């Protein structure tokens, strides 16, 4: 009977080699009898509770150690981009809700901002601040769901219930603003679908004041919990250079120590005038990604605090007859307004030939909207650079050499949403 020396990959504090890739410390654990063991091929998903959607991971395992991991996607491909070519500029907005259904307002705003840039439309001050409020609110919305589902993947069920209770309050805010809980379709080219209802700001203020208590309670359950730390610390480490090269963005990139936040580096809607911190981690492991997102929620609350104070009176929609419908009273009484209403509805809003790429810091990373127009009322090309698509492509780099249960933890910490991956 022959024997072999078995080596395991163990990391305490990984150092990074010259390329910025973590070097795991290896040490031999001893001798074992030579068992002929071949690798196992297992399939996780696409129907699986812990894959956060219809993601399929095919893992090659040596015992419990991952030799290779291949994500297979496309199980939710709904051809949004092709469908967008058959829809007018405003008709695409309901499609944007359904891509990242965890933060629909961010997508609504990002798309409207891209088309407004293409058309050279400046929205009103009130609209700008309301959109900042919407985006930050949905950042919290998305992070709360991430927190709940990540906790439940690691095994902490209570956190899921708490975060969903908080999310119900955001659902009520969505519903008051737009009529729908998830598929909000709140923006239009040149403004919003409707102005803020009476009392909405007070309800939002109440939410902003009471959410920190829930985040604190959740932190007491998780942050210093040895099980949580054991499952997340030094798991799924990715160094800064590799993270940039893999195209990671958002909290995933910042947890690796790269200070790239579009709100600060390429600001839009006066983000440079708001007082907030860009949250940057250090080790690039799951635990840092968790800490970064928790702190980001607090920073979003800070921005919301400031934005609520700034909401001015005034029109929510820009007074541009190319894009905005006239008021209903005018349309019903004034001939010119009626014709204008007819033209905008029947022909659709028209954009000049040209193109525009607009990046927004979404809850998951850099959301890029690329719209190309040939002068008509429908786009030639509508491309969505969904951050989760690229974040997921970095998954194999993070889990090779780790254990099977780490795959679940890393997958959860990436905060992916399949609607945006598969589009």
């Amino acid at each position, binding site marked *: 009977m022959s024997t072999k020396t078995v080596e395991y990959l163990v990391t305490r504090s990984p150092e990074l080699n010259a390329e910025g890739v973590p070097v795991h410390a290896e040490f031999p654990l001893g001798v074992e009898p030579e068992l002929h063991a071949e690798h196992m091929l297992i399939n996780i998903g*696409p*129907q*699986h*509770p812990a894959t956060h*959607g*219809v993601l399929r991971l095919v893992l090659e395992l040596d015992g419990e150690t991952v030799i290779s991991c291949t994500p297979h996607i*496309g*199980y*939710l*491909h*709904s*051809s949004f981009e*092709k*469908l967008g*070519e*058959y829809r007018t500029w405003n008709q695409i907005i*309901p*499609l944007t*809700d*359904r891509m990242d*259904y*965890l933060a629909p307002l961010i997508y609504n705003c990002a798309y409207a901002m891209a088309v407004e840039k293409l058309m050279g439309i400046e929205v009103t001050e009130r609209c700008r601040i309301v959109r900042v409020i919407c985006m930050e609110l949905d950042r919290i919305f998305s992070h709360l*769901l991430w927190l709940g589902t990540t906790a439940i993947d690691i095994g902490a069920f209570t956190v*899921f*219930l708490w975060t*969903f*209770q908080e*999310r*119900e309050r955001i*659902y009520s805010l969505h519903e008051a603003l737009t009529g729908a*809980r*998830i*598929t909000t379709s709140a923006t239009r080219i040149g403004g919003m679908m409707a102005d803020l209802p009476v009392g909405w700001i007070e309800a939002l203020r109440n939410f902003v004041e009471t959410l920190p208590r829930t985040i604190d309670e959740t932190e007491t359950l998780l942050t210093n919990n040895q099980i949580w730390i054991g499952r997340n610390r030094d798991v799924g480490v990715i160094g800064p250079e590799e993270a940039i090269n893999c195209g990671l963005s958002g909290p995933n990139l910042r947890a690796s120590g790269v200070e790239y936040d579009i709100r600060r580096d390429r600001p839009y809607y006066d983000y440079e005038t708001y007082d907030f911190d860009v949250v940057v981690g250090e080790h690039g492991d799951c635990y840092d990604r968790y800490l970064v997102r928790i702190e980001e929620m607090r920073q979003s609350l800070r921005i919301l605090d400031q934005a609520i104070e700034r909401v001015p009176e005034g029109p929510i929609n820009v007074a541009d007859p190319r894009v905005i419908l006239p008021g209903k009273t005018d349309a019903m009484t004034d001939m010119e307004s009626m014709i204008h209403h007819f033209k905008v509805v029947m022909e659709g809003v028209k954009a000049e*030939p040209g193109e525009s790429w607009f990046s927004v810091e979404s809850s998951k990373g850099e959301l890029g909207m690329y719209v190309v*127009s*040939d*002068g*008509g*009322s*429908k*786009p*030639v090309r509508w491309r969505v650079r969904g951050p989760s698509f690229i974040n997921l492509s970095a998954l194999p780099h993070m889990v090779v050499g780790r254990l099977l249960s780490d795959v679940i933890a890393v997958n959860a910490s990436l905060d992916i949403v*399949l*609607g945006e991956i*598969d589009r």
Partner: protein
Amino acid sequence: MGVSLPTAGSGEASFLTTRLDYVVNWARRSSLWPMPFGTACCAIEMMAAAATKFDIARFGMERMSFSPRQADLLICAGRVPYKMAPVLRRIWDQMPQPKWSVSMGACASSGGVFDVYSMVQGIDTIIPVDVYVPGCPPRPEGLIYGILMLQEKIKGESLKNPALREEDPARTGLANLPAATVDEVARPYGNSTKQNRVSGLVDTAALTRPSDREP
């Protein structure tokens, strides 16, 4: 005592079989174990229905079963592209009888807004469906209403009706509806018939199929 018990399959209801039906149906409908086949936005509303505010555990669905072998109810929540269709069919085939299915949302019921090359136009082309819950997404109350409707349906079932639990093993992995019916239910209607490019004046030479336009 002179009471003649009806033989199995005789098709006659009797006092004993209706009592048995009542008990069996009560047990089945009050402890449905759902298998959440959540794909997209409807899955989030399904999760909200399972969370504290709406709580389907009140209706006996405390335990979500992620293994189809131990599940009674397949809740298909979300859009199902063709790539996912064999997975759905296989999960359905793996569920043992008695089983029911709820098609949650517009996309699962009919394709929803996605009348496109990659989307199944209604999961009833793939698996048999008992209850359709419309909405995009349906509110959690809507899903609960659909589940209660299913519970009513189960209440009306009978053990004496073999057709209810019949499943043809030769049809595993195959579509639920015959080809002509699939084309019939999935044909374009309403606004879908007018989907063509009118952007600018560029001729994109898109292929049109005769069935794409209704007169």
